[in-house]
């Protein structure tokens, strides 16, 4: 399946019942094993788009193909064996009384034995650093802890395609970093195709292959992080900004006229660039 197209979207338009047009003219596709990001301001349509890709919203004009088949013709079972979606608000996703039961729900439905299920659940809880909370009641968790359990609930099922709606919002910095590492690992090692909606511009360049910017329901730009993050002005137009690091170097380059080449997006890159510039300055 390497590099075959797994999700192919061609959405002319999508309207909510109250006539809000939430998506229009969207043509993108995700190849097997890609890690794609959706960036956009509040209300730009990220969640809507993910729900369409997940087969939850069906009244759109156009087509969404999952492995070549129109998703509206597939049964829930056929879809959800392949795709898992993490909701933006954990309260929409958690329903069982305790952490363990909630995470176990998916694997049990997939037909795993109790022993196997239990192993998967504990593994997933360990991945999100929540192994000590298995018996706690869902209601009694902090927001970030709930978010972690949501993620564990999907990890335990082992999907081939993961759709994540702000998976790291509400996680602490360490949790955010670990989560992104985990996702990258799933993506690189197991070839899981991942689509992630996010606002975290600082996080994006470190991990993503591909990036689309949504604004008012339309895709306004797409490409690798380097291609997408250009001038601060362009980003502000869609209510986003550059990563802090990029912003600083951008200012040094354009306002203070320091001779940086390309604009680095991550701490590591920026450090290298600065060192290089210093060498240059010294040699002058």
């Amino acid at each position, binding site marked *: 399946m390497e590099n075959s197209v797994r999700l192919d979207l061609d959405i002319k338009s999508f309207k909510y019942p109250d006539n809000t047009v939430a998506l229009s003219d969207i043509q993108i596709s995700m190849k097997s094993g890609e890690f794609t990001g959706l960036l956009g301001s509040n209300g730009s349509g990220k969640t809507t788009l993910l729900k369409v890709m997940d087969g939850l919203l069906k009244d759109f004009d156009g087509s969404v193909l999952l492995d070549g088949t129109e998703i509206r013709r597939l049964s829930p079972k056929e879809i*959800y064996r392949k795709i898992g979606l993490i*909701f933006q608000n954990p309260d*929409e*996703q958690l*329903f069982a*009384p305790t952490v363990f039961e909630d995470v176990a*729900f998916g694997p049990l*439905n*997939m037909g795993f034995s109790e022993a196997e299920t239990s192993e998967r659940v504990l593994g997933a809880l360990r991945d999100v650093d929540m192994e000590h909370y298995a018996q706690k009641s869902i*209601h009694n968790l902090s927001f970030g802890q709930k978010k972690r359990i949501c993620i564990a609930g999907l990890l335990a099922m082992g999907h081939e395609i993961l759709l994540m709606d702000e998976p790291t919002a509400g996680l602490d910095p360490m949790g955010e970093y670990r989560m992104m590492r985990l996702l990258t690992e799933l993506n690189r090692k197991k070839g899981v195709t991942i689509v992630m909606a996010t606002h975290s511009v600082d996080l994006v360049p470190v991990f993503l292959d591909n990036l689309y910017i949504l604004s008012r329901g339309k895709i306004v730009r797409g490409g690798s992080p380097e291609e997408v993050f250009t001038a601060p002005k362009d980003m502000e137009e869609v209510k986003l900004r550059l990563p802090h690091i990029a912003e600083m170097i951008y200012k040094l380059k354009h306002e203070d006229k320091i001779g940086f080449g390309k604009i680095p997006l991550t701490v590591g890159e920026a450090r290298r660039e600065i060192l290089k510039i210093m060498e240059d300055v010294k040699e002058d």
Partner: protein
Amino acid sequence: MQIFSEHLRKDHGLSGIDARVKLVFALVLLGLVLSYKGFIFPVVVLAGCLSGCIYIRVPLKIFLLRFSEPLFIIIILVLLKFFFSGSEVMFSVEVFGINITGHSDGLKEGLTIACRILGAVSVLALLGFSTPFTALMSALSWLRVPKGFVEILMFAYRYIFVILEDAQVIYNAQRNRLGYAGFRRGLGSFGTLTGSLVLKAFDRSHAITVSMIQRGYDGDMPMLKHKPFRALEVSGALVIVSVMGVAWKIL
């Protein structure tokens, strides 16, 4: 929620017993109490179940709460029977021109029903206090109660907490913005609370369904598996039941 017994101590002697055994045992006992004609047997059962409740240390407050409604009904019933039915006049007085007559056979009949009620209620109370809800549910499904019914029971039980929790959340949110300030606005706040509670409940149920379908729900909830019966529990229950049966016969 205090009205449920989930939070009770989980480590007492009765909680470990197989819920199926407890359920069948309670049903048999209930049948015996109801079909008994006098009041000695129900009193024996009552005494037994009360000691059970004391043994597992049911907090007094919860215990009284549980019995308050039946007790009230009993009082009314006895008064009703005493004054309005029966033929053997026990006393008769006139108060403000109204003739009040007490009947001894009516009183006896009332007391008999009272004992029956107390006996039956105590059996159920002990069952409820000593068994977690989920265990009772899987015992029901073992008893061949249709799976659909048990599933609805589980959903309902879950939603009761969700709704009460939501009520609390909305109440807090309102309080935080000075809701319930003054009588008129207080009523308004309460109206908003119930209204949003209903709407929120529907949204919640929708969200939960979507999330369940997403994780492979196909119309049937996965159920707990039963452990095998333990001989000691079953035979113990049998012995008590037969002793009770004999008592029922001879008392």
